[in-house]
């Protein structure tokens, strides 16, 4: 535990000083503030932020994460020269990367809203956006960390990171739509729910949909989804799926990291 905290502390301090992270915070500050100013309506601004969060957060987490860990390679080699537990070192690296990203995201997104003042509905929606962004950050830094330890070659690693991001943000939903179109004669509501559970971005997106498009979700098909997600079973399954999406890459990364010969 001690090793993990030490690595975390060093990493986080280093990450906070990174220009990229400052740029990331500034991006959300500027975008949120601009949306608030131009739309003049917090709810409308949040609606636009749904797409931005679902698009940008995974991209930044996975690309920044991969690049950052490649850059920290010398530091890792130095640490591993000491008699330290590799699993703890890995977790330290992961958390040292993830926590600063979460903090920057939350501050960048929430600050303009806090300064602007919000009603109860908008607070609820802001909270949903923050939770979705935070969870997505955790998932995609976990994937980034495992890619960085798995691929020796930086370029391949970065390619893999972007590939994974493309797959889960765009290609996967296209595939789902294709399945729905091809099998349109069958009742697919439940199957669709299953497909959604297999993609972290989709889980986050559906969670946000229920808050932002309540009226549309009351239709027949929507009602099936609504019932599932508003019930405790849906919440449990969604939480388990997201946890699996965080734990699995970390477990994989730890395994590789423990056997890796630096």
């Amino acid at each position, binding site marked *: 535990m001690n090793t993990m905290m030490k690595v975390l502390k060093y990493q986080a301090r280093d990450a906070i000083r990174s220009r990229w992270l400052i740029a990331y915070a500034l991006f959300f500050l500027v975008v949120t503030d601009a949306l608030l100013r131009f739309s003049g309506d917090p709810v409308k601004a949040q609606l636009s932020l749904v*797409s931005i969060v679902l698009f940008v957060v995974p991209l930044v987490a996975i690309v920044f994460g991969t690049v950052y860990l490649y850059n920290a390679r010398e530091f890792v080699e130095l640490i591993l020269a000491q008699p330290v537990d590799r699993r703890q070192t890995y977790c330290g690296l992961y958390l040292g990367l993830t926590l600063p990203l979460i903090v920057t995201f939350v501050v960048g997104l929430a600050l303009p809203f806090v300064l602007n003042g919000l009603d109860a509905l908008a607070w609820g929606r802001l909270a949903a956006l923050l939770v979705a962004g935070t969870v997505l950050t955790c998932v995609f830094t976990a994937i980034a960390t495992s890619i960085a330890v798995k691929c020796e070659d930086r370029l391949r690693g970065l390619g893999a990171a972007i590939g994974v991001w493309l797959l889960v943000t765009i290609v996967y*939903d296209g595939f789902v*739509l294709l399945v729905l179109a091809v099998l349109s004669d069958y009742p697919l509501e439940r199957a669709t729910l299953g497909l959604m559970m297999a993609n972290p*971005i989709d889980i986050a997106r559906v969670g946000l*949909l229920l808050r932002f498009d309540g009226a*549309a979700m*009351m239709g027949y098909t929507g009602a099936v989804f609504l019932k599932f997600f508003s019930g405790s079973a849906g919440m449990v399954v969604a939480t388990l799926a997201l946890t699996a999406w965080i734990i699995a890459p970390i477990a994989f990364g730890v395994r590789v990291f423990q056997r890796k010969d630096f």
Partner: protein
Amino acid sequence: MRTPSLLRPGAAALLLSLAAVTTPALASPVGAAQQVVNVSPTGPVRSIRQALTMVARGGTIIVHPGVYSDTTIVVSLPVTIMGEKYPVLDGDGVRQIMTVTADSVTVRGIAFRNVGVAFTEDLAAIKVVRARYCSISDNRIDNGFFGIYLQEAQYCAVVCNVIRGTHASDATSGNGIHLWHSRDIVIQGNRVSGHRDGIYFEFVRATHVHDNISMGNLRYGLHFMFSDSCDYEGNTFRHNGAGVAVMYTHNVRMVGNHFTDNTGSAAYGLLLKEISDSELRDNIFSGNTSGLYADGATRLNAHHNTFINNGWALKLQSSTEDATFTANNFAGNTFDVSTNSRSANSTFRGNYWSEYQGYDLNRDGVGDVPYRPVRLTSVVVARYEPALILLRSNFLLLMDAAERVLPALTPETLADSAPAMRWVK
């Protein structure tokens, strides 16, 4: 409880003049007919039935507080029946409470409760049969099967009644205010809840429905068929099982109504089916799964309405021809317009769309590029329903953007050529 600002001047004058006409008293079975008869649980006259045999034509029966349980009261001569502090007429859950068969009958200030439920006849708290100039106002009806039922009635006013049903299923519940084959009726300031249909019209002409609140009904808040030349103003239809459905009618005028929170797969803020030459103005549709569903709404003129936070603001079926949508506001809806055809038979002009991304270079308040309210996503969802779950996914956003540049599946001609840049007042 709102009181009506005024009755339709014409109708009110008519009612008053007719109430003033007192016809000579006919010989009644018990002595001379009296102008005023008092009914109270402890007095000499203990039931309205008894009072009806004593009262003069055009006289008044004053019902004092108490609970009256009697066989169905048949009002067959013109009288005013007035309750003091809401005396209760109880139907004991087995019968109709009052039947009005004479012209110029006034019933006010009475609490009706527990009407019988029957599957072969429509039992009501008050049923008016083939009568004219009746006035039913300020009554409370609880647990009625049907509430107020007008059958072949003319020139009547139904005003400020509170009608609350408690039945849980469609089959054991009637309509709050039910009009059949009637004309020139004023329905104003009533509150109807918990019935099958809040307000139901069939074969009704020239009737005014103003300032009523119809909410929490099992099926429709307002339901009418074959009822031409009626107008609906300032009513609120909220949280009804299937919203409001109106069918097979010409010349409907709907102004300043609220259609709110009607949610469900078959719930519509307002469903128009075969409605022609009608006007829809200043209405507010909010929080409905589908705001306005237009199926065969020919020559519909919809302007200055507000559609806000609906799932689908407007579902336009191809059977709707020559409808015009001008100066409406569309804001915060998941889908603004969806349609089942690629051709556009309706005209959109000068509406405000919160999703509009165009610009206004000459600053005249009118967007310089047309707005196409049908998104590819809504076409996809209409075809493959479960695809609703992909809403707001990056994939569909990309497809939407591509479709906007080069329309292939969405109706290219369905566009607002002069979208308003700001909220239309």
